[in-house]
Every structure is written in structure tokens, then in C-alpha cells.
């Protein structure tokens, strides 16, 4: 962030006190609020460490087994396989939709990023219900049993199909930003198109591929829904089973800790890749749009490839969903439960979005307006909740409430709290960005024109920051809406949301009953998603 960089630049020349506390001291109230938000965000991570240390012996016993090695191997194996497959799908799709004359490439680009909005557990449910042993295909073919889709195959298939857009989006961006004269220069110097792609284009794209790939790997490691429905024993599923079994809480915490360590390594890789991504653009000046490459006869295989990916990742799941939904509707709907669960989902997600936005405003104000070591720490700590998988955040909060604050255990408040701190960084980025667009000078100018600080806040700052706050809130809302493991672990007894409803029905094999809540979830998600994609920030 610019402000942080400015703070660093300032920091070198300043006396230590100013460096730590900032040149402009933030109001004490704001600083106090910031510390509260920071502490709240750090709570799950801190308590996880505390819970593990509390029973270090048991934790070590739980972790130092061959099973842990197996878990790491399986989870990393899945992450590596999915990442490789996602890259293999995304690279040709990105190139075809940006650089070739593929018919309808804009439509393809939109269609092919859409699978990202399908939550992994809904995707997994749809694949199981379509291709599983007792699924729609088996029914259609009139066979008793199909070969099992469960395990690695299913998890790999589902996660690949719903995460490749995480590579596709940054890759398309990188391809669009790439200076076309680089390719032209290489061709003029006598290199064949294939050679040019290898020696000039690919090195330019490597940072985007790397960054997208790490995102996919992180997603796979923290995913709970798909691996659980596909019954693949990865970390998250094992943690959940250990927790559910009732007496394996230390074990769950210890496994959570190992998972977090694995993810931290990946985070470090991601940070390095992102830093390397600042490939120096040597070329100033006007850019002409790149000439689309003529596909000629290759157009047909290219279309077939795009069509196949869209068919498997989008048309098939949506088709299956509609198929089950119409079956369910014709056999009668239980509207009461649906409305209650829908209301629960909406309420929890909206409350989390509100709480996260308020916290994010505090953090963003501190880091943008009062850059210093202290405010930077608050900002960094704000990311702690995000760095943990949802299931680990939930687990830590279960421990915390059962041991320290029992009256809060399984209350709606804790669920909202968990969702808010987990997704806090999603709100900090857009709000911080919009605050950067309101330089203090603008407010000073308004003050100079005779307006009171409050009037300035109302007439200048708020309207300018509003879109950032809305965008951040919408992003948190979307993610909280479809969050599964935290809701499973923390929701009050009897408090079902659409997400948990889908999950429960699917785990009992009630595919038809899962369809309506899944559909409703996607419908509720559509308006904020549309809002965000119109702002062009859905990829962030």
C-alpha cells in the first residue's frame, strides 16, 4: 500500500518515537478501536497456539504419527495435482480468449470465469449427485452402481474445475497488459511463433501463473466442503472428524496448527512471487492493441476445448442443479424451512459484512492516514484471520468460548464474529484503496471553505469512500454467505443456514432436497456478485 511505503520512506529519517507512533498521532479513540480490531483478528491464531501449548504433550503425540505424514502427503498431493491441472487448463484458455481470433472470445471469457462463484461443496454435491454411484447418471443408464467417484479422483476433479479461474483471471490480466511490441520485436528477429511464445511470452506470464497457482494451492488446502463430500482424507476433513468425535480436541488443534504451518510456507512463496511480479515495464509511450493471432483451422479444436471446459465446469453442474430442483418442486417444497434457512444465511452474512466493514474502516483509516509502525502492525494482524482456513478459525473460537467464555458458546454472536474476522482483509483492501483517493488536502480544502469537520465528513469523505466500503462489504457478504465449516462448528443448535442445509442433505444422500437451498444460495449471491463484477473488483 502507498501509505505504508510512504511511512517506510518517512521512517528512515525520523526520530525513533515518530517512527513507531507516526508523524501524525492518530486520535486515541481511533487507535484504541484499532487495537481492539487487531486483537480480535489475532484471537483465533493466538488461541490456537495457546490450546496446543496447553497440552503440548498430547498435541505432540497427536502430530508425531505416521498418519500426519500421510495427511501432509495427501493434502499437498491434492494441492499440487489441482494446481498443475488448473494451470494446464487456464493457460490455453487465457491465451485463446485474449490473444487469438477465437469466435466469441469475450463471451467465453465471462462464461469460463463463472465456475469460480459455485461454492466447492455445491460443486462437489452436484458431481456426486450426477456421477456418483446412486446419482442421476446411474439412474439415467439404469445401472445399479457406477464406478466410485469418491476419494482423490472426485476431489481433484471438483477442485480443479472450480478453481482454475483463480489462475485464468490474473493470467488474462497479464496477457492484456503485455506490450504486444515485445512479441512483434521477437518475430521480426526471425523467431518462429512457437519459439516467441516460449522465450518471450511465457517468461512475462510466469509471475501471474505462479501467483494464481499459489492461490489455487491455498484454496485446496483450506477447502473443507469438496474434500468432505468427496470423502478424501485431507487435513480439513481429518480436523473436522477429530473434532466431531468429541474427545480429539487437542488432536484437532494440533492438526490445525500443522495445516497453518504448511499454508504459511505457501504464503511466503506467494509473497515472493507477487514481489517478483513487478516486472519492470521498460516501455513507456503509446501502446497499440495486440493483433489477434489467426487460428485458421485450429479454431475448431480451440472451440471444442473452451466448450468442453464450459460444459463440465458450468453447464453440467447448473444443469444437474436445475434437474434436481425441478424434481424437488414437483414433489412439493417445504417453504417454511427454506425461508428460515435463507433468512439465517442472509442475517449472518449481512451482520458479518457490517462488522467487517466497520473494523476495516478503522484499520484502513489508521494505515492510510496515520502510517507508523504501530498502525502497520494493526494492519498486518488484520490479515491473521484470513491466513487461517475457515475450519481452524472456527475450531479456535470453539476452544476459546468453551474454556474462557462459556456463555458465548454456540451463540450467533460468535458465528458473526468468526465470519467478520475471517474475511476482514477482503474489506480492508477496497476501503483502504478508496481512502487513498481522498487525500487529506481535499478535506483541508473543504475546511478552508468554512465547513465544520463533521460537515466535511458528511459531504466530502463519506461520498468518496462509500463505494469502497460498499464493495468491501459486498465481498465479505458473498464469502460469509457461502462459508461452510465455520457455520457448521459455531452456529447455535438448530440454526441452519442454506450452506449447512446443502451439506447435511447431501451427506445423507438427499440430492433433491439439496438442490433448492443450493439454488437459493446462488440466487442470493448474484446481486452482490454483479455489483462487484461491475466494479471490476471481483478478482481481488
Amino acid at each position, binding site marked *: 500500500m502507498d501509505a505504508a511505503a510512504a511511512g517506510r520512506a518517512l521512517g528512515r529519517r525520523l526520530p525513533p518515537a515518530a517512527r513507531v507512533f507516526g508523524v501524525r498521532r492518530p486520535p486515541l479513540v481511533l487507535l484504541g478501536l484499532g487495537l481492539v480490531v487487531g486483537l480480535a483478528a489475532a484471537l483465533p491464531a493466538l488461541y490456537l497456539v495457546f490450546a496446543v501449548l496447553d497440552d503440548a504433550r498430547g498435541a505432540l503425540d497427536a502430530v508425531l504419527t505416521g498418519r500426519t505424514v500421510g495427511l501432509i502427503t495427501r493434502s499437498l498431493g491434492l494441492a499440487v495435482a489441482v494446481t498443475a491441472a488448473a494451470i494446464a487448463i487456464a493457460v490455453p484458455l487465457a491465451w485463446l480468449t485474449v490473444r487469438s481470433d477465437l469466435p466469441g472470445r469475450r463471451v467465453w471469457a465471462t462464461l469460463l470465469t463463472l465456475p469460480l462463484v459455485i461454492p466447492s461443496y455445491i460443486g462437489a454435491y452436484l458431481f456426486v449427485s450426477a456421477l456418483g454411484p446412486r446419482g442421476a447418471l446411474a439412474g439415467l443408464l439404469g445401472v445399479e452402481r457406477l464406478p466410485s467417484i469418491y476419494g482423490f479422483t472426485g476431489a481433484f476433479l471438483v477442485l480443479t474445475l472450480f478453481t482454475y479461474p483463480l489462475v485464468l483471471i490474473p493470467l488474462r490480466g497479464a496477457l492484456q497488459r503485455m*506490450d504486444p*511490441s515485445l512479441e512483434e*520485436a521477437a*518475430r*521480426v528477429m526471425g*523467431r518462429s511463433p512457437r519459439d*516467441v511464445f516460449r522465450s518471450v511470452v511465457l517468461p512475462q506470464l510466469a509471475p501471474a501463473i505462479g501467483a494464481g497457482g499459489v492461490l489455487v494451492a491455498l484454496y485446496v488446502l483450506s477447502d473443507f466442503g469438496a474434500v468432505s463430500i468427496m470423502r478424501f482424507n485431507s487435513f480439513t476433513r481429518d480436523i473436522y472428524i477429530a473434532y466431531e468425535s468429541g474427545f480429539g480436541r487437542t488432536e484437532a488443534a494440533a492438526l490445525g496448527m500443522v495445516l497453518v504451518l504448511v499454508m504459511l510456507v505457501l504464503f511466503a512463496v506467494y509473497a515472493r512471487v507477487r514481489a517478483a511480479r513487478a*516486472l519492470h515495464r521498460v*516501455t513507456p509511450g503509446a501502446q497499440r492493441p495486440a493483433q489477434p493471432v489467426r487460428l485458421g483451422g485450429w479454431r475448431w479444436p480451440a472451440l471444442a476445448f473452451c466448450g468442453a471446459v464450459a460444459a463440465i465446469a458450468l453447464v453440467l453442474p447448473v444443469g444437474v442443479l436445475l434437474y434436481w430442483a425441478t424434481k424437488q418442486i414437483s414433489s412439493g417444497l417445504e417453504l417454511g424451512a427454506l425461508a428460515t434457512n435463507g433468512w439465517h444465511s442472509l442475517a449472518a452474512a449481512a451482520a458479518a459484512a457490517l462488522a467487517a466493514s466497520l473494523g476495516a474502516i478503522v484499520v484502513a483509516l489508521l494505515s492510510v492516514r496515520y502510517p507508523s509502525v504501530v498502525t502497520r502492525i494493526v494492519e498486518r494482524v488484520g490479515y491473521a484471520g484470513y491466513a487461517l482456513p475457515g475450519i481452524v478459525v472456527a475450531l479456535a473460537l470453539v476452544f476459546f468460548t468453551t474454556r474462557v467464555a462459556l456463555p458465548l458458546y454456540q451463540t450467533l454472536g460468535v458465528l458473526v464474529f468468526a465470519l467478520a474476522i475471517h474475511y476482514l482483509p477482503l474489506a480492508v483492501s477496497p476501503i483502504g484503496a478508496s481512502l487513498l483517493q481522498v487525500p487529506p488536502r481535499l478535506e483541508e480544502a473543504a475546511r478552508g471553505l468554512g465547513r465544520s469537520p463533521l460537515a466535511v465528513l458528511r459531504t466530502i469523505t463519506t461520498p468518496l469512500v462509500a463505494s469502497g466500503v460498499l464493495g468491501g462489504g459486498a465481498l465479505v457478504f458473498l464469502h460469509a454467505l457461502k462459508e461452510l465449516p465455520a457455520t457448521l462448528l459455531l452456529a447455535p443448535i438448530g440454526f441452519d443456514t442454506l450452506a449447512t442445509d446443502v451439506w447435511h442433505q447431501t451427506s445423507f444422500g438427499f440430492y433433491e432436497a439439496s438442490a433448492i437451498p443450493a439454488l437459493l444460495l446462488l440466487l442470493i449471491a448474484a446481486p452482490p456478485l454483479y455489483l462487484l463484477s461491475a466494479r471490476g473488483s471481483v478478482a481481488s
Partner: protein
Amino acid sequence: MRAVAGADLELPPGGTCALLGPSGCGKTTTLRLIAGLERPDAGEIVVGDRVVSSAERFVPAEQRRIGMVFQDYALFPHMDVAGNVGYGLGRRPDAGRIRETLELVGLAGSEKRPVHELSGGQQQRVALARALAPTPDLVLLDEPFSNLDASLRDRLRQEVSQILRTAGVTALFVTHDQEEAMSIAETVAVMREGRVEQAGTPEEVYLRPSSRWMAAFLGDIEVLPGDARDGRARCELGTLPAGAVSGACDVLVRPEAVAIGVSGPASATPAEVVTRRFFGHDQLIGLRLASGQVITSRRLGYPAWHPGDHVQAWIEGPVEVLPREDEPAASGAEPHLAVGHDDDVA
């Protein structure tokens, strides 16, 4: 819509040619057509004695052996200087050739430097070295100096033109800057709305413009109505050679060809100074002639003339006389581009 239609142009080998025109006239497109980066709808492009583009064949860019310096240089950001310069020399580039080319552009010893650390002028010379390293038949330069600041630009123009001459390569460069074109190129081709309006030496195009538009594009011009008969044109500033033109005509006069003095030769005409702008090294003097027409004279900075002065004005230097209708009819023929051709220059 056609960006280029009727760009007939032939270049002699070994020389430097400027493709000059206002922005949007199709000069960059012409360059890209020659490089093979764009496909022409019709017409023919010949490099040396090789047809690289015609109705029957299209040689792709990578097989044309043409060097190109891009407007934004297009240096590969993930390679060092040697990587960039050696890129056109194949998978295993000859280090000796890289060193040789870098010496030519005055960057010896910079092989290992990352390109983003270079200054604008150095980047430009790396781009030039990269284009020259594979010893191409022809080097194309697209607005090569437009990304440089004014002080650097003037120095690099001379340097680049010297480098190109040393390398002995045929060069074609695109520019919208008249002074740049005339000061470095041996041949200047002026383009307008997709066609070559006139080509020739800088003196030819400046002093003998083929149309009023050409004259005005290359510099300030005064147009005096005249009447031509028997090879002589009469206008308010005297009687001048008219060539083959006969009848009503335009006499095109550069301001520097309008001389003034307290007294003048017998052919001089009385005039009154109405405006004066002083630029230090020279001054522009607005003169009202007897007919009421106001023309401009460019003189050295001294002596000073002042509004109200009554002077004598006369022509001193070449002028061009053109028929009154100055727009030539468009030709329907397909464009023909021949670069480095041994035939006579058209």
C-alpha cells in the same frame, strides 16, 4: 477503411529514408506492412530483389530479415542487454557479434546490465543494436526519437544516423517531425492520408513542393496569386521562372525567401511593416503589400524592423510555381513499395 492506399515508394540501397507525415497518415502502418506485422489487402512489397508481399505470396515477419526499432523500444524486460541484442542471432548467439554490435552503438561492456537500469537514450541504442545484430538488409525505425526529451533527442539523432551509416544498412524511419526528417535522411517521403505525396531529397521536397499542402506541411509558406505565360510567372513580388506552368497559378514563397530593405533591386515592391515578432536568432516581419495581402518575411535578428516602416520587398531564393488547382487527381493503381532496389529512384 484503408489506412494505407497508394504508398508508392522506391528506396535506394544503403541510404536513410524518412517517412514523414502528420499523425494518422498511415506511416506506421506502412512500416508494419514492410515488417510483415500486418497483411496488406493489395499491392506489392519488394525488399532487395525479393517479393515479400504480393497477391500471391506473404512472407511472415520472422522470415523477412528486417530489423525493427519500435517506438517504445520493446526491450525484453526479463533479459539483460546481451540477451536482448543476441535474441535475433538464434538459440546460441555469437558473443563476438553481440560485443561488436554494442561497440558500434557505444555501449561496449554493458552486456550484463538489466535493461530497466538503462537511461532512455541507452535503451534506444540497445534497441538499435538488437535490430542491427543479425545484419538485416533493412532496418525500420518507428518514431525512434519521440520518447526522448528535447536535449537528448538532438544528440541521438546525429548518433543514430552515424551508426546507421557505419553499419551500411538501408534504413527507413517514420517521423512526424519535419526537421528530424530533413536533417538525418537522404530521402524524404511525405505521406498524407495513406498515400505518398512526394519523395525526394530534403532539398527537393522543401524547395520544390509538389502541392500547396506539401509546402505548408514542411514549413511556413506564403501563397501569392500569379499569372504564368511563356515560362515566367508574374506576381506581386516580381516576375519569376514558372517552368511548364501556364495560366492562373500560385507562387509559393518561403518567408526566408522574402527579402526586405530600405532600398532594393529594380524588381522590388513597396511594402509596409505591420507586425514583428523577435526570436533572438531571427525575426518574423509581417508585410502589407500594395494589394493589401499580408505576407511574412523571415530575416536574421538584426537590423530591427518596426511596424510602420516603409520598405522594399523582393524575392531572394527559390520559389515554386504551381497551377491554381493544387489537388492532384487520386490514382487508382495498387501501391508498390520497393526498398533497397537497384532501379532508379522513382
